[in-house]
Structures are given as structure tokens and as C-alpha cells.
């Protein structure tokens, strides 16, 4: 634990709303403690701005323990910053040096329009889930829990994929702003379990279709998504989805799914 304060220069993206042009603004903080989290450092900046009567920097955040997936900052050119397997809220200032300049931007993608400053609209992810990211079982119709045995290996693989927090770092990191890792994680999680098997074909077909409609880019198998994922989701999930999608498209004729509802 060190207590010596650091000076940090910030270049932060300020943008009024989606339709207005944004710009980089410079700020300097002189009392940054190395024990602060990155978001606490932004809190500090905001406190200073509020006292000066300026509008604070807007950013999404909630649980601040790396599980809710709300925080979504592009820090020095990498989603969630330079640390592996770490969300923005769990990144600590001791990972930076006194006098560093840090560039902070929102996640950028056509499907993630900026709402204000560093906050963007990721409801496209929810729309993809609504198109098929579930197992169709009504409340009460679940069978006795141990009636279906699940191979431990499958359960573990499914859990690996289910660990996705829906933060969007994969989209932010991808040079094509593709959502393949997010979709593949859900397709894998549900498809690997026997419970999710009956509608596996329909699920992958509908989810990919919805993903394409929402304006995400295409996968070019680079693996930047995997490298940026704070939960370590593997691109082998994308390969699994590619395989399932091919089989689904060529061997069955899923009906048009629902999932077209919009909300705001």
C-alpha cells in the first residue's frame, strides 16, 4: 500500500449527445492516490468539476466489483485499460505512473451510439438476447433438477461461456466492431447443456440474424475480443457458433423467430 499522491493528465472524450460532435478535453489531477480505482479517480475529477460549477464527466458504472458489466471505458486505446482480465472498475491507479497522460474514450461502434461523454447505448446486446438467447421454458415446467444429467465437462464449458458480463469490450476491441464473441458465448452456454439442445439450431440462427441487423461488423478471426475480454471468454466459442450456424442453416428450416420488439 503506497500513499504518495500522483499527478495524472487526462484526455477525456466529451460529447453532448449522439447527434453532436465530440472532442477531447484535457484535465489534470494532482491528488490521485495509487490505491484508487480508475473510476474513483474519475469520481475525484467529477468532484473537482462540480465544485467549479462545470458538468461532470458521464460514464456508466454500477457494481464496481467487476461483475455487472456497466463500466465501459476505452483506456489508453484498450477496452478496460491495459490490465488483462480486468474491468475498468477493478483497474487501480497504481498501474499508472506519476505524470502519465491517460486517454479515455467511450466504446465505439455503430451499434453502440454514444449517449453522453463516455456512456454509450449497449441495448443492442439485449436485443440479441431477446431474439433467442434463452431456453424456452415457462415458470413451473422445469423437471426435477437431477432428472437430466449433465456431463461435468459440459457444465464447466458452459459456465466458462456464461461468465460473460455483457460489457461490450469485445465489440470495442474488435477492429470490425463485431459482436461475435458476445453472441457466441451465449450460444455456447445454452447449446452445451442438454436443456438448451432442443432449440439450439433456431437459437443460433435467430441470434446471428439479429446481430447482423443491428449493424455490428463481421468477425475476422483476429482474437482481439478474446484478449480484451475481462472474463476470459475464448474465441473457440466463436468457432463453435460458426459450426452450429452452418449446420443450422444447411440442415434445418427454423421458422422466423420473434425478438423484433424495440424498446427505449
Amino acid at each position, binding site marked *: 500500500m503506497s500513499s504518495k499522491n500522483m499527478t495524472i493528465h487526462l*484526455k477525456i*472524450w466529451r460529447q453532448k449527445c449522439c447527434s453532436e460532435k*465530440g472532442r*477531447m478535453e484535457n484535465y489534470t489531477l494532482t491528488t490521485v492516490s495509487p490505491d484508487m480505482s480508475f473510476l474513483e479517480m474519475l469520481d475525484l475529477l467529477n468532484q473537482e468539476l462540480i465544485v467549479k460549477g462545470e458538468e461532470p464527466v458521464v460514464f456508466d458504472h454500477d457494481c464496481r466489483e467487476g461483475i455487472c458489466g456497466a463500466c465501459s471505458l*476505452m483506456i*489508453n*486505446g*484498450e477496452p478496460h485499460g491495459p490490465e*488483462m482480465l480486468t474491468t475498468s472498475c477493478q483497474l487501480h491507479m497504481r498501474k499508472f505512473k506519476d505524470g502519465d497522460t491517460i*486517454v479515455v*474514450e467511450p466504446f*465505439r*461502434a*455503430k*451499434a453502440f451510439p*454514444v449517449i453522453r461523454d463516455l456512456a454509450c447505448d449497449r441495448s443492442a446486446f439485449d436485443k440479441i438476447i431477446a431474439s433467442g438467447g434463452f431456453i424456452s421454458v415457462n415458470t413451473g415446467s422445469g423437471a426435477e433438477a437431477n432428472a437430466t444429467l449433465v456431463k461435468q465437462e459440459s457444465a464447466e464449458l458452459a459456465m466458462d461461456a456464461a461468465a460473460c458480463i455483457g460489457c461490450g469490450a469485445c465489440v470495442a*476491441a474488435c*477492429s*470490425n*466492431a*463485431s459482436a*461475435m464473441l458476445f453472441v457466441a458465448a451465449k450460444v455456447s452456454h445454452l447449446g452445451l447443456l442438454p436443456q438448451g439442445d432442443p432449440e439450439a439450431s433456431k437459437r443460433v440462427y435467430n441470434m*446471428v*440474424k439479429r*446481430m*447482423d441487423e443491428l*449493424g*455490428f*461488423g*463481421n*468477425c*475476422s*478471426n*483476429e*482474437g*482481439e*475480443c*478474446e*484478449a*480484451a475480454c475481462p472474463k476470459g471468454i475464448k*474465441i*473457440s466459442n*466463436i*468457432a*463453435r*457458433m*460458426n*459450426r*452450429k*450456424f*452452418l449446420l443450422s*442453416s*444447411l440442415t434445418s*428450416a*427454423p*421458422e422466423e423467430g420473434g425478438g423484433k420488439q424495440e424498446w427505449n
Partner: protein
Amino acid sequence: MSKSFAKSSLYFNYFFSSIGKKQVLAVTATFLCLFTIVHFIGNLLMFAGPQYFNWYGHTLASGPLLPLAEGLLLLLFLSHASLGLWLACENYRARPERYYKKVRSGRGATFASATMPFTGILLLFFLVLHLLHFRFGPVYTIVYDGVEMRDFYRLMIEFYANPLNVVLYLLSMCLLSFHLGHGVQSIFQSYGWIHSKYTPWVKRMGLLIAVFLAIGFSSFPLWAYLKHGVVGY
């Protein structure tokens, strides 16, 4: 909607989906890779001597299936290139506002993977020039065993006597190695053929193929230049 229509629109949807396009790209890539390997093996005959090389060319050119093969190849190249460009345009549009600062993690993208559209376009230029120089280039003839045929050997030796042509060729092979270096393993990923046991080998094999083909192809103009460009034909 009748069932058969639903099914046909399904295939239509497949080819226009992001994954479908990638997989078609991968299929064309697979055939192009195979073609490149066959092309390389055929060219090895130049080391055996002019008559072997020219006979090989003649046999291919006089075969009844040549137009079909050439047509297929053209289709493969065109569909691969146009699909690739289409995907690249879509990808560009998926991020209308670029980052102020973006760095690669070093654990994912490589120079090769990040430049696929560019190496692809440059290789396309190379291909056009390559065809203009050889397929549609000057027609020298030579007679072996009473059969008149095109003297591709002479054409090649003369062309690579010019060091500029050699350098351009070598550069193009560098591009090829980058393109295949990411491309070969990418084919497997797009099909979904991955396995924790085999995928590391697939990746290594992809790199090996890329480097081997680039070096192998480079040996032809270098050999031609060193043998005849310097000494004179």
C-alpha cells in the same frame, strides 16, 4: 409462406449473413490455397529443365478442360476478392467514428491479420500483372519432338532477367505469406474446426504453409535471375 420458400430464403439468408459470408470466403480460400500449392509444385519443373517445364505448360494449355478450369479459377478469385472487399466495407462502416487512440493488445491481432484487406488488394494487382506477363504475355514458341508449343521457360527467364521484376515478385510473395499466415488458420476457425488438441498445430501449420509457399515461389525468379539474368541467356 410455403415451406419450400422458407427453405430457399433460408439459404439466401445464409449467404447474406455475416457468418455465411465468412464461410463462403473460407471455402474459396481453401480452393485458392490448393490451387497455389498445385501451381507451386508444377513450377518446380523449371528446375528439371526447359523441355519439362514447357511440356507441362503445353499439357495444361492444350487440355480440353482448360476453359473450364480457368473459368472456375476466375470465379474463385473474383468471389474471394469481392466477398473480402464487401466484408471489409461492412467492417469499416460498423465503426463510423474511429478511436482517438487504439492499440493492439499484442495477444490477438497481428500485422498480418490487421492488413488482410490490403494484402488482398495488392495480391490482386500482382495477379493481374502476373497474368498479363505470362498468360497473356508475348508468345514465343519452341518445338519438342515435332510438337510446337509456347516457350514459357524463355518467357520467364527473360522476364526475371530484369531485377525490378524480381524485386516486385519477392515483395508480392511477402504479401502472400502475410495473407496466408493469417488466412490458413482463419479458414479452420470460420468453419468451426477447432479443438484444443489440434488447433495449436493448425496454427503452426498455417504459418508453415505461408512461409514455405512464399520462399518456394521466391526461389523461381531468384533462380532465373541468378542463372540467366546475371550470366545472360
